[in-house]
């Protein structure tokens, strides 16, 4: 259960924490410097990195998903922003102004950039690698386990739900078709799911306990992650970008 796409690329080999640093920079810089050229630059860099990670096609569905929202921003800001003075074009009774469209473009570039930055992390990083990286930096192992377990449990529950659906259909329960049938099918389906989840939780807790989950000694990790020499340099660059942006804002 993750959006991770396995590709041989430099981006994939980067430390997850470096990608987190990049998100921090890509999100803060365009807000600190509220001009279109900065937002455009950040978005461009992000999509070049996505291309380097060979996952740019996987972002397109996400962009398609936010496209209606962005379109509505253009319509609302373009027509109704209070600062609107310079008319650009009109469609029948609809008047679009330069100031509004310009502001909408800034917002859209920010959204597209942020979306790309998060995609860069999610599409090129295995969730377990990210969680391990965070645990190495001091995230409590209990929380690390919970994060990992959530990702594992969703497909498991989906499987269980399929088997339960089969079992109830076998007993004459209509699970598709009319809306009323579907509503009536809710309890026979959700009941076993919840009961099994409770029972499994107990088993899981005991299985973890016999493997010394609550041990207080310092943990080691089975998989030693390779440090990429570029990681430190990239993190410094991200930090530098944020500092530069702040300086530009204060001076300019």
């Amino acid at each position, binding site marked *: 259960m993750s959006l991770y796409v396995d590709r041989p690329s430099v981006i994939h080999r980067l430390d997850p924490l470096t990608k987190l640093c990049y998100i921090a920079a890509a999100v803060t810089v365009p807000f600190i410097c509220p001009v279109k050229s900065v937002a455009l630059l950040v978005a461009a860099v992000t999509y070049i990195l996505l291309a380097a990670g060979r996952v740019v096609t996987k972002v397109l569905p996400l962009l398609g998903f936010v496209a209606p929202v962005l379109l509505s921003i253009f319509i609302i800001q373009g027509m109704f922003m209070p600062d609107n003075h310079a008319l650009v074009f009109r469609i029948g009774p609809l008047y679009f102004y330069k100031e509004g469209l310009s502001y909408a473009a800034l917002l859209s570039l920010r959204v597209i950039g942020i979306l790309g930055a998060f995609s860069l992390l999610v599409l090129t990083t295995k969730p377990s690698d990210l969680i391990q990286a965070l645990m190495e930096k001091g995230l409590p192992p209990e929380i690390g386990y919970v994060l990992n377990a959530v990702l594992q449990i969703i497909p498991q529950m989906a499987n*269980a739900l399929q*088997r*339960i659906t*089969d*079992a*109830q*259909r*076998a*007993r*004459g*329960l*209509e*699970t598709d*078709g009319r809306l009323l049938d579907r509503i009536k099918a809710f*309890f*026979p389906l959700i*009941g*076993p799911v919840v*009961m*099994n989840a409770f*029972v499994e939780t107990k088993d899981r807790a005991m299985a973890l306990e016999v493997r010394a989950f609550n041990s207080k000694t310092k943990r080691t990790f089975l998989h030693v992650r390779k440090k990429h020499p570029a990681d430190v340099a990239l993190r410094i660059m991200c930090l530098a970008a944020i500092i530069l942006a702040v300086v530009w804002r204060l001076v300019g």
Partner: protein
Amino acid sequence: MNDVSLDLGGESTAFIGQNGAGKSTLMKLLKGLLVPERGDILINGKNTKDTSAAKLAGEIGLIFQNPNEQIFKHKVFDEVAFGPRRIMDAREAEARTAAALRTVGLFHKKDVNPYDLSLSERKLVAAASVLAMDTDIVIFDEPTMGQDEKGIRTLKAILEDLKGQGKLVLAVLHDMAFAAECFERIVVMAHGEILLDGPPEAVFANEEALKKAGVEPPPVMQLAIRCGFTERPVTKESFLRLYYERR
């Protein structure tokens, strides 16, 4: 599934084979939970493609391996009555439910919460919930798995009772002794195909095909081979008969 053609008439039939051989898939196809991409499955003349699993519930019953995947009522009686209440009137449903609970020997626990029962008993509740629907065909998926000695004895009695009523009993089994003792016909499957099909004596004597399917013959037959018998008994009784003859 590949090139499977079967006529399941009157004989009680056990399906054996390794995990992933396609046994449970075949049962789901028969039950209409899955629909074949090519070919047809006719249940009492009705094509499973033209009807829903829920509509077939009155004709073919499938008892799943894991009872926890179906139990949702707070009382054993209501759990068992869930299916019958969907396909018959209330009075008949209650009568069938009571009868099914007596058959599995759990009538005295009809007001207990199913989750307070042992796994063995819960499996019997799941069995009763299908038996109560009074279908012409009853399929058991791994009925012996996780079942204790008492449960297995109850199960044997249930199978005999169903056969006595003229119903078609099918089962997916890993317990070869149980398959050989209780079923008239054995179908051996591997990789979605049928390797062998016939009475237990003939099927279990074909050592080569069994090896190919990754299945071991019943323990008594293995014992007979170790004892140097030329015959191939499949039940305890036939083994003992041979044993006393030789003494």
